[in-house]
């Protein structure tokens, strides 16, 4: 498995889709800046900016970006005709996709660092006064949790669309709406159960008193998704996918 993960990282060299991911994340941050400064008498703060970035991340940009980048890396094994060379080594499909998912999480970590640092730099540039170690720690922690939860939430989509060539494109569209629907559930108690909003609960994202966060429920949902994803992987591996 370590060899597989190592080679998956090598495959990302000169890989343009990664840039698309970076641009997507950057847009999310820039949008948050506009949202924060666009309203009259708005107070520009680091905490406010960070919350805006988190909101745009989970509801608009992260779900489809994760499915796009990881789905594309799986899909290229079909389109570049490399899958046949891997299967005859032999490497099973389940191990191949698992390695891509693990490396995909590596990209989530890179995305988290990129988001956190850019958000902080923009806050510094905007002269936010509430920048201190504690607020940085909260922002970094919340971004990390939301990114990780978003990634877990889209795992079934990545796996379901991994079985056939070019199916990941429909996964990208679905994941966008999957994330977008989170907007309508974030201010209701369903926030604990909807996979895409579990990150808000676990990161204790700012909310009004009407909503009660139940982290144990959200953790249960995420564990259920991980189990479901593993079952999907087994099903995918068992399916007779002739090349």
């Amino acid at each position, binding site marked *: 498995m370590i060899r597989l993960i190592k080679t998956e990282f*090598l*495959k990302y060299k000169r890989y343009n889709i990664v840039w698309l991911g970076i641009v997507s994340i950057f847009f999310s941050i820039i949008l948050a800046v506009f949202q924060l400064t666009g309203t009259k008498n708005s107070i520009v703060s680091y905490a406010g900016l960070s919350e805006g970035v988190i909101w745009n991340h989970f509801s608009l940009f992260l779900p489809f970006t994760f499915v796009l980048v990881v789905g594309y890396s799986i899909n*290229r094994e079909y389109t570049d*005709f490399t899958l*046949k060379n891997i299967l*005859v080594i032999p490497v099973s499909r389940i191990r191949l996709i698992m390695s891509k998912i693990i490396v995909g999480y590596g990209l989530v970590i890179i995305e988290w660092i990129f988001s956190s640092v850019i958000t902080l730099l923009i806050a510094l540039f905007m002269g936010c006064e509430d920048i201190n170690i504690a607020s940085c720690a909260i922002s970094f922690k919340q971004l990390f949790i939301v990114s990780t939860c978003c990634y877990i939430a889209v795992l079934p989509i990545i796996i379901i669309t991994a079985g056939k060539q070019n199916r990941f494109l429909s996964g990208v569209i679905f994941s966008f709406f999957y994330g977008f629907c989170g907007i309508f559930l974030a201010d209701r108690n369903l926030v604990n159960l909807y996979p895409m909003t579990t990150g808000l609960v676990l990161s204790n994202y700012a909310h009004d008193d009407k909503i009660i966060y139940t982290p144990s429920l959200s953790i249960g949902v995420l564990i259920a998704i991980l189990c479901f994803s593993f079952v999907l992987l087994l099903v995918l591996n068992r399916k*007779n996918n002739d*090349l």
Partner: protein
Amino acid sequence: MSDYLIETKQLTKIYGEQAAVKNIDLHVKRGRIYGLLGRNGAGKTTTMKMLLGLTQPTSGEVKIWRKTLRGNEKKLLPRIGSLIESPGFYPNLTATENLRIFATLRGVPNRHAIKDALDLVGLPYKDKKLFSQYSLGMKQRLAIALAVMHDPELLILDEPINGLDPIGIAEVRSFIRELCDARGKTILISSHILSEISLLADDVGIIDHGTLLEEESLAELEQKSSKHIHFTVSNTSQAARVLERDFQENHFSVLDDHNIQLYNLTLPIGKIVTAFVANGLEVSEAHSCEESLEDYFKRVTGGEGIA
């Protein structure tokens, strides 16, 4: 003990209602080059994919090194090098980077394996050119390098000369021959080009519409298709005795009870017919045939398609 390195039994692949491969019994001998010859769409690639476990057979069995492929993939596949259909590599990486990925996955212990494989096919090591910038011929060479990089005992090569220029074809041909002769590799190679197979293979299988029509050594095939005199007589056993006794000739084939082929064209047909009649045989047909290997393949496969 079977001397076959690859043996298939009633190997069949059906897609929907169409049979791509029907009841193929393939026998590839150890240390020889087996040429699978057939027109495009005959079932060559499907057969090879089944031999590599890339496609599951609808029925039948694949045995490699006398072990069933199914369930023994981890033991068998690392000993096989393959090139199936078009070369498959990552376009954003160089040839060396691509081979490094597969060498890492295979756990190739030889540190020089990548360089050696590239040298073998005439591609530069650590070149900065990306795979996407390669010509079709270079891509094909790289695919061959990948197939041999881990020093496999068996090579399964599907149309390996596709896209190569004439010099490249000759190089690959002599390289494949050397792999078999000098290094004792067993090679299964497919092609739709008759001349390629006849220049390279020791044994030939002719496949058409998913059915293996013939399987024998190239020498036997050449003998079958060579120039000969064909006789249709009332009793071929007696005709054979006449040829041996009266003409001291034993270079002939008895096809069935009534048909016999004589390969020595210097013998006079008239005298042979007279001798047959004098020995009480009825001769209903006697003519000379000049069938080339190509004519033979055309006849066997139904008349057209093989270059």
